[in-house]
């Protein structure tokens, strides 16, 4: 019942924000929502592996991802406040932004804990709708284009995923199930007709690829992330991608109990390698910072998908990679909000000498780049190392070498652009005038990056236990 109460509470909060349009009400609602988030997270951790009404279950991966989401949303609230203050929006636009943000976060939580396949689909559809409202916030022509593409292809992709769900319901019907709850599907998995399961897997995977931003439907997500405001982008590139991943994970668990596991692993490996390859090629042409980070997300998700296909170690590594990537990417996007404030354009070639302008922020950005590129002591190094170890154990030498080469190219490109931003000379007219420095802005990123390093090198026991629990459902 807790999640239902949470969702109703968030609907009430967002309606009150929309109706009142008062900034005090906004901040009050955000504060209440943060408290609700924290309490839900602790509640879910305490009641782990229990059912919460018949439609939700607090399983290990859901708890992990919700913790990450809570941490990132609280930081995102602060950065949204800064963003909206700089943009000087009128109260109505601010109210719409905050209301959409609250609904977006609660839809994602509903998707993390969903136990029923149909409910998962509805939650993902809802996140699609609310994130489009957020992408559209700046109302420029580019925003319209990005929102239209994202909304349309997301709808088509989810329609395709729905066909996959209908196929799964065929096999559920054959085995006498009457609803699409995951526990029931898992129990009936070994007896399912192989052909339907394969078709369902391919269709659902294609539909979810919009959300995870991997091949084949990655382009609209990348475009959307090029446009969205940075606090929203921090949530989009991390939590929304995790929603897609958790959907894939649940279907993969069902597949793992049938005889099509090997075939599904081949497909996941293929898609992962293709995603990294395409990300590398596209990165050579990128000239905007947000787009750079968006393609970097695509590459990391490709790695996570490869990890998912590799058995026990791989899944552990994939989940660890997912969590650490979320923290690091969100930090980078928060810093990007500050960077965007100082320059007049979005093109990388028109930026530069950030170290001179904002030393603290530049330090944070540099730390973030080191973290996201999996350079030690970053925690991402640990997870990527585990993925490569799993690749070598499974004798996938050629794939491992290919990915290493591609990752090296990506590291080169990102460092080249980042050093241009940090150190290159820039002419005076490209800088924004009269910008106050806000030292508190960089605090959140330092917290996040230090957390990434800490979780990689010396993770606390409850953290590793949770990931082990999430990855051990596969036998």
């Amino acid at each position, binding site marked *: 019942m807790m999640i239902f109460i949470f969702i109703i509470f968030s609907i009430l909060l967002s309606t009150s924000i929309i109706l009142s349009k008062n900034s005090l009400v906004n901040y009050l609602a955000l504060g209440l929502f943060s408290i609700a988030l924290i309490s839900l997270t602790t509640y879910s951790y305490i009641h782990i592996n229990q059912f919460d009404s018949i439609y939700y279950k607090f399983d290990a991966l859901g708890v992990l991802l919700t913790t990450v989401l809570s941490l990132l949303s609280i930081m995102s609230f602060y950065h949204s406040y800064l963003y909206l203050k700089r943009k000087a929006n009128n109260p109505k636009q601010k109210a719409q932004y905050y209301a959409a943000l609250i609904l977006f976060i609660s839809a994602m939580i509903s998707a993390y804990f969903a136990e029923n396949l149909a409910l998962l689909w509805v939650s993902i*559809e809802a996140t699609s709708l609310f994130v*489009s409202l957020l992408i559209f916030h700046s109302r420029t022509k*580019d925003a319209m284009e990005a929102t*239209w593409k994202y909304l*349309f292809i997301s709808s088509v992709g989810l329609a395709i995923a*729905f066909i996959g769900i*209908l196929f799964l319901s*065929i096999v559920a019907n054959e085995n006498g199930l009457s609803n699409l709850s995951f526990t029931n599907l898992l129990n009936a998995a070994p007896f399912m007709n192989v052909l339907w399961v394969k078709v369902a897997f391919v269709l659902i995977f294609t539909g979810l690829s919009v959300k995870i931003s991997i091949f084949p439907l990655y382009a609209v997500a990348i475009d959307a992330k090029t446009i969205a405001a940075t606090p929203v982008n921090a949530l989009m590139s991390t939590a929304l991608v995790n929603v897609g991943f958790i959907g894939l994970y649940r279907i993969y668990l069902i597949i793992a109990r049938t005889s099509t596991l090997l075939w599904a692993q081949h497909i996941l490996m293929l898609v992962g390698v293709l995603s990294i390859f395409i990300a590398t090629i596209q990165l050579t042409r990128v000239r905007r910072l947000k787009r750079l980070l968006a393609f970097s997300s695509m590459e990391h998700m490709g790695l996570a998908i490869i990890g998912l296909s590799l058995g026990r170690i791989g899944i552990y590594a994939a989940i660890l990679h997912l969590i650490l990537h979320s923290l690091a990417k969100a930090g980078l996007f928060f810093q990007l909000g500050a960077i965007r404030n100082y320059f007049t354009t979005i093109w990388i070639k028109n930026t530069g000498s950030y170290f001179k302008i904002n030393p603290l922020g530049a330090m944070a950005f540099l730390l973030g780049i080191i973290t996201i590129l999996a350079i030690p002591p970053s925690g991402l190094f640990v997870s990527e190392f585990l993925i490569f170890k799993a690749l070598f154990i499974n004798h996938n030498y050629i794939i491992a070498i290919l990915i290493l080469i591609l990752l090296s190219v990506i590291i080169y490109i990102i460092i080249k652009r980042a050093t241009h931003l940090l150190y290159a000379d820039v002419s005076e007219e490209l800088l924004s005038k009269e910008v106050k420095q806000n030292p508190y802005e960089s605090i959140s990123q330092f917290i996040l990056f230090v957390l990434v390093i800490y979780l990689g090198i010396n993770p606390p026991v409850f953290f590793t236990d949770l990931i082990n629990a999430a990855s051990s459902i596969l036998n």
Partner: protein
Amino acid sequence: MTYLFILLYAITLIYFALSERVKKFVWLLSIQGFMLFGIVFFSLNKIDLFDFIFILTETILIKSIIVPWFLNKVRKHNKLKRIQETSVPVFFSIIVVVISLIFSFLLSNSLNSDNIHTKYFNVAFASILFGIYFIIIHKNIFSHLVGYLIIENGIFLFSLAVGSVMPMMVNLAILLDVLMGVLVLGVFINRIGDAFESTKIDKLSKLKD
């Protein structure tokens, strides 16, 4: 009698490939709604009364009346040209739609499962294939919305084919999808039409590298 409406639905798909006028697209969508109602009505012995009333509302009220009315409003608001050219000649599209119909009939012939009612499955599959093809060949976002609705009609038929595993919830999900899709996307097309002065997608390509 169900077969009659299924084949009439297949003929509307052929007319979709043939026509180039935007008004005719909307009109054909309305007719497809009636065909869907006919299909459902004549399989009545498998569905109970309350579900039947719900499906009646969904097909006739929403797919045949409300959605076409809304689409006409969007069309008039954007002052769409009467004829929307496709990037593939219509001659070829008709051949493609016929091939997809034959392929789906043959596919449903070779499936012998007790759980799929293949008489709905074949037009559902052909409809989904043709909807995706329709989106690919048209270069106007209004036509993309029409293609999305064709896919949704195909999914509706597909849910009929799959049988009665919670028909209520499945129909509710599809209904929500259609309504939300059409309303939100339609309102969006209006805004895009206002901002860009046209609804062609080559104006919507500024975000590429």
